[in-house]
Structures are given as structure tokens and as C-alpha cells.
């Protein structure tokens, strides 16, 4: 009897899921935001186990304006294009760098001005780009920092002086390796770098004064989805005017980095 019941429940559960999977596209009232849940302060799991962050709270504010329900969908960063093109998410909203990807997405207005920087441990004695020669530098796979380092017109020459460019799936692992000394430096976004260093609570790490480049964050939509993009752009403007945007920026310590006019 128990077995039958379990069997029945399982079938029911799968059936319901299959049906929900059939309802093509994410409908008018839900807004599915794809984000990397391991990317504080833009999107991460807070102390209560809820997904939050600057970008997600901003998305929430947009949904309130539009009367939509927000679905926060964590994604594997490497799969972001597949997720967007297959329609499993409506946009990528997560400290998403525009520079170098201008033609690949329908972009919102840029709202954060971000730089790519190098983080090193204080003890290492590395203080400038020149000191990085022969060192092992970590970087997130498919990240903006990586494309800067691989671009001939940007910092490819610098990257060529490194001993090795080591790719990581997430920054937590990269920092753990920096801590135990298996890598010498990490190339990453300044906002994320600040969060990481601050939350690790000690002065073990520093950000080099030289920056790899300066770049802007936007929200990425599928190329044919300009309509949704335009709606979000208008909403961002409204949120800037009523002060919500600046309040959120301050909450997440990003005030001196925003660039929404």
C-alpha cells in the first residue's frame, strides 16, 4: 500500500513538472532572472538562506513596478547563453559586463561602472603588474576579466608575462587557493573583490592600484527581445528618479560605482 502511494505521488510530481515544462516561454506575469548565485554582492545567498544582492533587489523593484512575479533562477555561468537562447531565463542580470559583448545581447542602459583589478595576498610582496611576471593568476571561466586578459588590444601582453592563467568555476575556490598559496593573484571585478576581501575579515589581501581596465555593467537580453529591454530601461529610470536605485547602491556599498544618469 505504502509503495503504491509513493509510486503514485512520484508519478504525480513528475507529471506536474512535465506539464509546467510544456507551457512555452515564461509568461507575461513572471520575470525569470538568470544570475550566478556565487557572485556577491550582486547575487548571492544571504544569512537567512534567501537569494539577494544589489541586482536581485533591483529586479524585485522592477517587478513591483510592473506587477510581475520575480523568479530568481541561479544558473551555471558557463551556460548563460544556452539558458537565455533556450528561453529558460528572460535575462541575465548579475554584474554582467557589456564591454566586449556589445553585439551578443540586447543591452539595457549601463548602471554600474566597474573595473577589472588584480587581488594578491599582502605577504606576496606583489605591488604592481610588473611583479606578476612568472606568477600564477586565477580568473573565473567565461568572465570579463578573462576576456580582458585574452584580448590583444587590452591586456594580452600582460597576461603573456604570467607563469600561468588558471581558470576557476567560482571565486570562493580561487580565494581559498590564494590563501593556501597555490596561486599568486586573482583577476576579477572590483566590486566582487571588495566584498570578498571585506567578508574574509582580515587584511590578508590587497587590490593592486593599477587597474586592468574600466567597464560597465548592464542587463543582457536575447537579441530579439528589445521590447522587454525597453520596458526595463524605463523602469530603471523611474527607480533612479524615486531614489530606490541609489538607496540600494548604498546598501551594497556600490555608491561610488553607479553610472545610471
Amino acid at each position, binding site marked *: 500500500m505504502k509503495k503504491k502511494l509513493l*509510486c503514485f505521488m*512520484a508519478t504525480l*510530481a*513528475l507529471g506536474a*513538472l*512535465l506539464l*509546467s*515544462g*510544456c*507551457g*512555452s*516561454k*515564461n509568461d507575461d506575469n513572471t520575470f*525569470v532572472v538568470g544570475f550566478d*548565485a*556565487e*557572485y*556577491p554582492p550582486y547575487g*548571492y*545567498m*544571504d*544569512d*537567512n*538562506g534567501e537569494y539577494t544582492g544589489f541586482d536581485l533587489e533591483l529586479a524585485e523593484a522592477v517587478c513591483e513596478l510592473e506587477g510581475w512575479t520575480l*523568479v530568481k*533562477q*541561479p*544558473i*551555471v555561468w558557463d*551556460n548563460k547563453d*544556452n*539558458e537565455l*537562447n*533556450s*528561453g*529558460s*531565463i528572460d535575462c541575465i542580470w548579475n554584474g554582467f559586463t557589456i564591454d566586449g559583448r556589445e553585439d551578443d545581447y540586447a543591452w539595457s542602459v549601463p548602471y554600474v561602472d566597474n573595473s577589472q583589478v588584480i587581488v594578491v595576498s599582502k605577504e606576496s610582496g606583489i605591488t604592481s603588474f610588473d611583479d606578476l611576471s612568472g606568477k600564477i593568476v586565477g580568473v573565473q571561466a567565461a568572465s570579463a576579466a578573462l576576456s580582458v586578459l585574452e584580448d590583444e588590444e587590452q591586456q594580452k601582453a600582460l597576461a603573456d608575462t604570467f607563469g600561468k592563467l588558471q581558470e576557476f568555476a*567560482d*571565486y*570562493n575556490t580561487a*580565494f*581559498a587557493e590564494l590563501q593556501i598559496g597555490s596561486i599568486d593573484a586573482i583577476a576579477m571585478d572590483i566590486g566582487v573583490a571588495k566584498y*570578498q576581501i571585506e*567578508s*574574509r575579515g582580515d587584511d590578508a589581501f590587497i587590490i593592486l592600484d593599477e587597474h586592468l581596465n574600466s567597464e560597465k555593467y548592464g542587463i543582457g537580453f536575447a537579441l530579439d527581445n528589445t521590447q522587454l529591454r525597453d520596458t526595463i530601461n524605463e523602469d530603471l529610470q523611474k527607480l533612479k528618479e524615486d531614489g530606490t536605485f541609489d538607496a540600494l547602491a548604498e546598501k551594497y556599498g556600490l555608491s561610488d560605482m553607479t553610472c545610471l544618469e
Partner: protein
Amino acid sequence: MAFSVMLTELTQGFLITISIFALTLLFSMPLGFIVAFGRMSKNRVICGITQFYISVMRGTPLMLQLMVVFFFPGYVLHIPTGNGWRFPAIILGFTINYAAYFAEIYRSGIEAIPKGQYEAAKLLGYSKSQTFMKIVLPQVFKIILPAVTNEVITLVKDTSLAYTLSVIEMFSVAKQVAAAQTTMIPFAVAALFYYVFNLLVSFVMNRLEKKMGYY
């Protein structure tokens, strides 16, 4: 984050882990029988197809298979799958993969029964289906149990691959908590969860083996 919150989050992820585990077993174990019969079929076409199926399932990484199942409808067939396809895709991917392994385990059990038993059963007046259900199958269960236990335990650990499709099971939760809290503790806790659950699985399978030691 308080330790209790971390535990709650991991437990919630663990429920997803268990659903993947249970649903995969539920669907792949019967499907494995069908595949096993196809593999042993005298019909060359059926035998060839199942042989090819098994070789693909065993010869490519499960992680890759999961991505194919998830992205194939949207990319190749242009059927928009939406956000709800994630979990069913995981179950489907795991099921077709594990069915291939189970099929070979079943086959090893069925083919281990000596021919003499079939002949004896025939002399005693058993029909073919009676012979299989009443004489062969009970012995097969006994023979394959250790191999099945292996596979079931592997499945518990393989569920962590669901993170590829962003199904937030326990390992994904551990990664996210670790990232936000900048600590490695969640991984240690997750390891303990997996280990204890597998202890339980081994215990149950051991009991089952003892129960079947009737001759």
C-alpha cells in the same frame, strides 16, 4: 549565517537530492529490464539498437548527457522549454543513463542461470513465463543485489551533477553558501550528509541480501 540556517538550507537541498535519487531509481530500474530484454533479443535490429544505446550511455559523461537532454529541445528542435524543464530534464537524463547500467546488471543475472534449469522446468511442465517468473527471476534478484547496491550508492553521489543544470540540490547549496560566507564548512557538512545517507543505503541493501539468503 548561523550554523542552524546553513543546516536548514543544506537539508532543503538534500530533499531535492533525495527526490532525484528516488525518482531516478523508480523509473530507471523498470526501464532497465526493458533494455535488458532488448539487449538479449534474438531480433537483430532490436538487439543492435539497444546495444548502441547502452554503448552511448556508458561511453559519454553523464554531465554531458544531462546538458544534451536539457538543451536539445530548445536548440535543435526549437521547442521553447521554459524554466520548468530543468527538473524533468535531470530526472530524464539520470533515468536513461542508469537504465543502461541496470540493464547490463540484469543481463548478467539472467544469463547466470544455467540452461539445465530451463530444461528441468520444461520437463516439469512449466510454461516459459512461469519458468521465468517463478524460477529464474527470484535467483536473479539474489545474484544481482551486490552489483545493484554499487550502482545505487554511485547514484547518491552522482546527484550532485544536477548542479550543471542549476537544479539546486545539496551540492549547489553548499557551493552557494560557501561563496556568500566565504568559507569551506558547507562542503564538509555536505560530505557528512552524503556519507550518512550512503551508510543507510548500505544498511538497507545488506538487510535485503540477508533476507534473500534463503538457500
